[in-house]
């Protein structure tokens, strides 16, 4: 299981990578493994306002549906169409090609509410 350094994590198994006041968001390796083969992804269009800890999309494997939570409050500036077309990319490369959306943060300080790599890894082992 991969837990890359330098990312922020949520307890709902999303990761965020900060670039200026933009956060790139995806789901963790742990999450994709638990879901199994991902077959469908529903993401909101660019321009949608999202709120921290509130679902903004859904992700489906063959026999499960989960919400994807926004780690921060802000506006979606970009959506990864490649993963909605071929959701298996998330299984293959959750931290790279498998990113889902970019969010422009309303309050960049909010990122500090997320947890560190170490804390996240620990939470998955519980």
């Amino acid at each position, binding site marked *: 299981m991969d837990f890359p350094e330098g990312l922020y994590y949520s307890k709902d198994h999303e990761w965020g990578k900060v670039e200026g006041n933009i956060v790139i968001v995806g789901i963790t390796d742990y999450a994709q493994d638990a879901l199994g083969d991902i077959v*469908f992804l529903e993401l909101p269009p660019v321009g949608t306002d999202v709120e921290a800890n509130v679902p903004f999309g859904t992700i*489906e*494997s063959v026999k499960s*549906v989960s919400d994807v939570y926004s780690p921060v409050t802000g506006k979606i500036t970009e959506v990864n169409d490649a993963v909605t077309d071929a959701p298996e990319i998330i299984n293959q490369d959750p931290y790279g090609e498998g990113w889902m959306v970019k969010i422009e943060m309303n309050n960049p300080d909010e990122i500090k509410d997320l947890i560190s790599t170490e804390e996240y890894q620990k939470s998955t082992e519980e």
Partner: protein
Amino acid sequence: MDYTPHSNKEIKEMLSFLGIKFLKDLYNNIPDKIKQKKELKLPEPLSEIELLGRLKFISKKNISTDNRISFLGAGNYDHFIPSVVNYIISKPEFYTAYTPYQSELSQGILQSMFEYQTMMCELTGMDISNISLYDGATSVAEAANMAISINKKKKILISETIHPEYRQVLKTYMKPRKIEVFEIPMKEGITDKGQIKENLIDESSCLIIPQPNFFGNLEPIDEIFPILSGSNTLAIACVNPLSLALLKPPADFGADIVVGDGQILGNPQSFGGPSFGFLTCKKKYLRKTPGRIVGQTVDSAGNIGYVLTLQTREQHIRREKATSNICSNQSLNVLAACVYLSYVGRDGLYEIAELCYRNAHYLFQKLVAIKGINPTFNSKFFNEFVVYIDLDSTELKKILSKKGILGPICLEEWYPSLKKRYLFAVTEKRTKDEMDLLIDTLNKALKVK
């Protein structure tokens, strides 16, 4: 007579393995207070001989439509069923199976359902099909639910010309959620287009139109569905699948969802059930569809196979957010339809539809030539029609039943303004002699008058 295969010796062995003395001890954790003390008051068990005798006796208190000449329709019809249908659906591997969750042991059902989906898409012209709802009435209610979940609007427009029981079911389904069901009035036996325009509002989730309608009349859906263009209101057609051999598929008029009852396709009348409801729709609504859907895939050796797919829409996964609560559906009736359509085939379906049409029109023309019988509507129709007969329903029934004729159905109970209006259904099974007997009987009865 029961069907448990255990010997007393086996029961004893099993109990002793469990460390239990008597069968009743298996229920020790049920509180005494709610345990049944006395034996239930049920009839003494019957042997197979007695059972068959008793049930034959009961069944004979019914009059089979096969011993009469039936013109009864109104949503349940006396069509021809080829013998191959019963042969196939009686195969134990089909009828004693459960829902095909375990696909490797269910390829027979799954492949036939995939074939069925293809056939229904062909008939209705739509992109995708599910593998059944309970019946035509519930297919209308499920389609309305689907529309509400697609456009989040809270008013349903439904034509008064659809089967009255379908409307009643829709209202029962919608009442608890305070969804308004507005009935578009009819004008001369078809949906009043002006009323659609008048009642189409922003909040209208869908418009439901039958084709042919309850009276057998052809609705001008080529003019009706375009009224919705530019609105977010979904167009839902409730069709007779046999009529689609002659009629343009609803897809050509912009239908979003097509539903209906499938009894006509190889299922007996059976006192109104089981039948099945079908639902086809545009691909963009795929994830909003209720019920099971079969998809094609491959196995680990690369062979083509079939599985239930898109299960994340369904109750066992999505629970309170599922597109519907439906679980058991009407699979065996769908298999009957699949075999029926495969048997009659492209030409056969057309010929059957054609003969239904011709028989109905023959009877209609002869009837309205009789003094005391008049056409009620001026519309084109398929195989059901309404005429005025100058006899009240008790009188009419008495006259016809003497000659072994069943039907027509008196419409007054459902449509109070349609006094002495009678609905006839004519299938391919009716012969000219049978129809002539009806014509002759009414001719004589009305002449005497």
